[in-house]
Structures are given as C-alpha cells and as structure tokens.
C-alpha cells in the first residue's frame, strides 16, 4: 500500500452533506425495517421517563 498518498488527497469540501443531516429514504431497506420492528419489541417503554430517570453518580 502507499499510505503516503492518502495525506495528499485534496480535502473534501465542507459543502458535502454531513451524515447527521437529511437521512436518506433509500438507506432503509425491508431488512432494516424488519430489524427495527424487532428492536421495537425490546425497546424500553416510556422513553422520556426512562431516559430522565437514568442518572449515574460520576465515576472515573
């Protein structure tokens, strides 16, 4: 491999969409939808209260 080349590649521009923006519809397949259905079955209920009550004492 010639890893030295990699650092010389032109930097991609900031204009490219960040992955946190605009989830693409086509990213979801039937397989993913089936998986989400399966996860729905195990996901704790009452998300808002559940997340609010998860408080930890600080650690290291």
């Amino acid at each position, binding site marked *: 491999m010639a890893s030295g080349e990699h650092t010389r*590649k032109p*930097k991609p521009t900031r204009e490219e969409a960040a*992955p946190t923006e605009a989830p693409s519809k086509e*990213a979801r397949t039937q397989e993913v939808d089936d998986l*989400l259905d399966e996860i729905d079955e195990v996901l704790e209920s009452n*998300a808002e209260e559940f997340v609010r009550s*998860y*408080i930890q004492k600080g650690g*290291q």
Partner: protein
Amino acid sequence: MSLPKICGIETEYGISLKTEGEFNPILTSSLLINSYAQPAFKRVKWDYEEENPLRDARGFDRAVAEAPGEDDSGLVNVILPNGARYYVDHAHPEYSSPECSGARELVVWDKAGERILEESIATARAVTGDTSDILIYKNNSDGKGNSYGCHENYLVDRRTPFANIAKHLMPFFVTRQIFTGAGKVGAESGAADIDYQISQRADFFEVEVGLETTFKRPIVNTRDEPHADAERYRRLHVIVGDANMSEVATFLKVGTTSLLLKMIEDDFITDDFSLREPVACMRAVSHDPACKLACELADGRKLTAVELQWEYLRLARKYTQNEGSDPVEDAVLDKWEATLEGLERDVMSLAGQLDWVAKLALLEAYRSRDGLDWSHPKLRLIDLQYHDVRRGAGLYYKLAGAGRMERIVSEDAILHAVDHPPEDTRAYFRGECLRRFSPRIVAASWDALIFDIGREPLRKVPTLEPTRGTKAHVQSLLDASPDAVSLIANLST
C-alpha cells in the same frame, strides 16, 4: 527494544433499576458481585498494599489530593477465576480484565466482562427473588453531565521519558476517537449543543496532562502505579477512551495504541504532530461526525483527524517493516487502514465495524421511519440501550444477532474466558492458583498472592513481572504441586 505490550481494560458499568423510586447503586453493585462470585473466591481478600493511585508519573508523589472515593475500603472486591478483578468503584460495578498479551486477547477478556455482568443480573435476581430488573450499560455517560470510565492499561518501559509519551500520545488520542468513539446523542458538560457526536467521553476532558480521573480530566493521565517492578515498568493509564461494544473498535483501540507505544519506546517517531489546542480539538473532532474538520497543529499545518491517523499508520507500517510484527499486529494494521479508507470514502460504510457509526445508522433509520426530530427522547433511549449488556435486549446485540456487526473473536472463546485466565501473562498464575488453591490464599492483587500454609508467617508470592507466570512458564510447577504447601516448597527450591 520496545517491551511486549501487556494490556488490560477496566470498565465502570452504568447501573440502574427498572423500578421507580430510590435506588442505591453501591448496594445494587455489591449485590451483583456478591451473588456472582463463588464462595471460595469471595473469601480471598484484595491486597491494597501496593495501591498508590496518587503517585504521579512526572515524579511527584501525592501532588494534588483527589478526595478518597467511597470505593476505598470495605466494599465488595473479588478476584475471578479468569484473573480479573470485579468490584464496586465510585458507585459502579467495575470489571478489570486480567492482563492480556495483545489486542485480540483483550477483546476476548473484555467481552468476557460483559458476559459476567449479564450473568450477575441473573444471580442477583436468584438471591433476592426480586422481579425488578437490574439494568447494566457498558457506556460512559448518563447524558446529564456524569461520566464514568473505561480505562486502558499498557506496560511501558520506565526508561522512556514521560514527556515523550505525553507529546506523541496527545495528538493520537485526540484523533483516534474517529474509530474508538461509541457515539452520543447531544452534548454535555458545557459543550455547544449538537445532534450527535462521535465520542461518549470527549466532552469531559478539560486539561492536557494530569493526575485526576474524576474531575478536570486530562487527555494524558499521569497516574504512576505500575502494579509491577517499578524500577523497570510504568503502567500507562489511559482514561480517554470510550467503552466499546464493537469488537472491531476495541481491537483497533488497543492494537493501534500498543503500536504507538512501541514506536515511542524505540524513539521511532521524529515527526511532531503537536496540536495547537488539544482540549478544544478533542471536542471539535467528536462534534464532527462527517470527519472533515481540520485540526491545527502547533506548526501551523492543518490536518483532519483521518489525515493525522494516516500519518500514524504510515509510521507504524514503516516501524513494523523494520522491527517485525506478529500476526495480531498485522491484522491491526490492515484493519486500521481499511477503517481510515472507509472514513474517507463514506463514513456510513463502517456501520458494521464502529460503534459510533452503527449507532448513528440505527438512529437515522428510526428517524427516517418514524419522522423523529433529533430532540425526540426515543433517540436518547436508543443511544442508551445500545449499550445494554443483556444479549436479548441490548441494541448492539440486536445488530450483532442480525449479522450486522463484524466479529473479531468467537463466542466460544469469550465464554471460555469467563472462567479461564489468559495463558501468556502472569494472569495465568493468578487464575490457576485461585482455581487450585483458593482455600489457602488469604489475599491477592495484581502483583502478589498471599498464602496461608498453616504455619506462620503468611507467604507472599510476588508476581512483579507481568510477562512471567505464563502457562509455558509455570504449568509444570503447578502440576508438580498437589497443594499450596508443596507449591510454596517448590517455589523456594
């Protein structure tokens, strides 16, 4: 010549109860550990004699007093047959893996820790008969400004100046989060708000170098507590990492850091990648899931985290070509390269390898299906439950079960590691002695076992050399010692 990178990972797990109302995390953590530990192992005390968490690698002793934690004494603290330590620390159950000889082994014994916590939930329930569920999360933040650690430890040559270690590790640690990050919805600890970030931990680092671990957390931690021959060794205590569910992420985290340390010991790195503002850069890198942000170096150059990691990989390739490498290191180098290529090409292509990308892909799928805004509490729940150690309920395990997460080791190896020590470090001697002679062992620690052979005085067997006490080294001794008395006699001849 660099030292073998004996390594381990200590994880403070998040703990909660499903029921409403008051809950005491110390009592529940104690219950988990007490119910799990076998009686024969529970009576072996942890030997605190060599513990000295306030000694500083920069040479001063007890410089900045960190308030003694409520973990210091009297709490549950057991040694497991696999050579690990399982105890209550800072109101969390903590699993400190046994010493391992490399990244692949450490993935195995780190994962064994998850299985031990999962099993402890069942043993605790059997004790109390309680139907309320104890919940255990292998993550680093409660999302409300409280963080708990996942620390790595590496054997380092005492002769290597600490200043060199700090100088070269700093830019490496700031940028390695692009593959070690476990992902987090939102920001904490005064960081500017953001939808999603790469690391669970990055928001909590405030200084560059220091001794503290619970506040003013430093990127390079100076705790100098070798748990080994202090004349020869340091134990580098790395507090900057996220706890990983992904085997690939742990493998890369440990494997790349081990290679960096070898290069530093051999004074191989002549480049200076010092960052202008490491602490600010640490946050900025974490807050940039596109991986496009340029970090400014002290010399004015601007490189992205990926580009800086390419530099380290280039050095590591050259170093191993000169000095040789083992098959695990070769696998680390190849995985490192594939990961950087993936991050450059399309971040989402690593959804099957890296925790932060896997979690992001899952969150995006939910957002797409249910039309959820980033502020929706369900997304924070998914973030949390990704780290649930129960294989039937943890979302990482749902992804893994669907074949969507790449594995590094086999489940058989992990289950074997629950009850067996690694064979090629001193953990083997510790684990085997406990398995064979526990009624005669009064106390144990990382660097000693203390035997009561029925007559005064107690006999201390030091294990100050982490590379000794391996199966190859002591199996014949152990096999020739049917009991502790003969072991002590054989050791002194």
